[in-house]
C-alpha cells in the first residue's frame, strides 16, 4: 500500500484547510452561514463518495464556490418566481399558472435568442463557449482543439460571459 488512499487526500485537505475554506466562504459573502455551508458541502462530498481527485484543495474550493453560486441562483429564481406570479396574477386573475407547453415554447424562444446572441459574437466564441460550458471540456483542451492559445480561449469566454451577463441584466430590468 505505498500509494495514498484516494479519499483520505480529500479529507486531509479538508481538515488541514478548514480555516482557509471558511475564509473563502466569508469572502464569497456567506456571512453567518459560512460554517453551515461548509458543513453541507463536506457532507455532500463525503457521502457521495467522491473518488480520487488530482488536486484536493482546488477541488474543495471549487465545490464550495459552486455551492455559493447555486445559492445565489436559487435566491434569484425564487425572486423571479414571485415576480412572475404576481405578473400573471394581475393580468389574468384566478387562472392557474400558464400551461407547460407555453412555458416550454417561451424557453425555446429564449434559447434561440441566446444562441443567436452567442453566434453573433463569432463562430469561435460560440464554439469555445459550447465546448467548455456545455461539453465540460477544460479550457486548455478547448484551446488545443481550436488551434488557438489558452489566452485566446479565455478572452473568447470572457466575451461570451459579458454578453450573457448583459442579457441577464436586461431580462432582470424588463421584469421589474
Amino acid at each position, binding site marked *: 500500500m505505498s500509494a495514498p488512499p484516494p479519499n483520505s487526500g480529500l479529507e486531509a485537505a479538508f481538515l488541514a484547510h478548514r480555516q482557509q475554506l471558511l475564509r473563502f466562504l466569508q469572502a464569497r459573502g456567506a456571512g453567518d452561514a459560512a460554517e453551515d455551508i461548509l458543513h453541507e458541502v463536506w457532507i455532500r462530498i463525503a457521502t457521495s463518495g467522491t473518488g480520487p*481527485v488530482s488536486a484536493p484543495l482546488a477541488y474543495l474550493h471549487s465545490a464550495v464556490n459552486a455551492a455559493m453560486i447555486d445559492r445565489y441562483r436559487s435566491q434569484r429564481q425564487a425572486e423571479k418566481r414571485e415576480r412572475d406570479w404576481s405578473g400573471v396574477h394581475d393580468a389574468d386573475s384566478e387562472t392557474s399558472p400558464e400551461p407547460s407547453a407555453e412555458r416550454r415554447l417561451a424557453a425555446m424562444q429564449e434559447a434561440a435568442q441566446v444562441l443567436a446572441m452567442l453566434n453573433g459574437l463569432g463562430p469561435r466564441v460560440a464554439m469555445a463557449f459550447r465546448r467548455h460550458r456545455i461539453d465540460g471540456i477544460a479550457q486548455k483542451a478547448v484551446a488545443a482543439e481550436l488551434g488557438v492559445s489558452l489566452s485566446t480561449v479565455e478572452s473568447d469566454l470572457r466575451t461570451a460571459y459579458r454578453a450573457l451577463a448583459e442579457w441577464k441584466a436586461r431580462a432582470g430590468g424588463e421584469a421589474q
Partner: protein
Amino acid sequence: MASGETNRDETIREQALGWAVRTNDPGFTEWAAFTAWLEAEPAHAEAYDAVCAAVLDGADLLRSAGPANDGSPAEETRLTPAAATRRRWLGGALAASAALVLGIGFWQRERPAPFVIVTAPGETRTVKLENGTSIALSGGTRIELDHNDARRARLERGEALFTVRHDPKAPFQVAVGEDRLVDIGTVFDVRHDRHGMSVAVSEGAVQFNPEAEDVRISPGQILARAAGSNRYVLSPIAMDRIGEWREGRLTFEGASLDQVAAELTRTTGIPFSVRGAKNAGTVSGSVLIDPIRKDPGVLGSLLGLNVTPRGQGWVIGTP
C-alpha cells in the same frame, strides 16, 4: 460623480468576468488570489455571482434547446460543427480541426518501443509518465507501455488506476483485450482478468471503443463486460469504490467464488483457490485487504465463506 461610479462598476464587472472565466475551469488553482480579490470589496462577490449565474442560465437554456435548432436555418448552419461535437465527441473533434487529424496520424506513425511493468500479487506500484500522468498498479498486474509513445498503454491483466493529463492532440488510450478506451481528461480504474473487463470513471470521462460502440463513461459509472461475451453493461458505481484497492479495500457484488479467489490472490499475494463447484453461489460484501493478509481465516465471518488452509495457500468454499 455618476460617470466615476459607472467606471468603477465597469471595472469591477470586467474583473468579475475574468475571475468567472478562470475559476470555472477545472484546472484553476489560484483560489488564494481569488479570495484576496473578493475580500477587497463586498461588491466583488455580488458582481462575480451575477456573471456566474447568467452564464449557467445561458448554458442551461442551450442544453435544453438540444443540438437541432429548429426554426432558424441560418443559425443551424452556423452551429453545425458545434452541434456535431456535442453528439459525438470524437467525430466532432475531428471535424473541428483537420490539422488535428493530421496530428494524430503523424503521432500514430511513431515506431513503437514497448516495455512491460509487472507487479507481483500483493504488490502495488505507481508509475509516473510525462506531464503529470500516472498509473497506479494493483497486485498481479501486467501493463505494457511504450517508450516512444507515452499516451498509450495496454492492460494485459490485473487492475490499474489511471490519472491522465488530457491532451486532445494525443488522447491517452488504453487497450484492454480487444477493447479500446480513450480518455477525455480523467481519473479511471480499469480491471482485466480472465473473468472479463471493467472500466470505472472517477473524474472526467472515458470514451469506450470510439470506432465501434462509442460509449461515453461518465464519473460514477462503470462499464463491464464478461469474458467471452460481447454484451457491455453500463451501470452506476459508488464513487468511493473506484480505485478502492488503493485504500486496501475490495468489494464484491454477486461475484463467483472463482472471481473472489482470483481477486484475493492478486491483491493479498496469498494463493487462494476454490473448493468444489466454482460457480456455486455468489459472494457480496466489502473486505479490507490487510487483515486478510494477516489472517485469511477472517474471510469466513466477513463473507460467509468456508476458509481452510491448504499447503502454502487457502481454500474457500460455500459453507
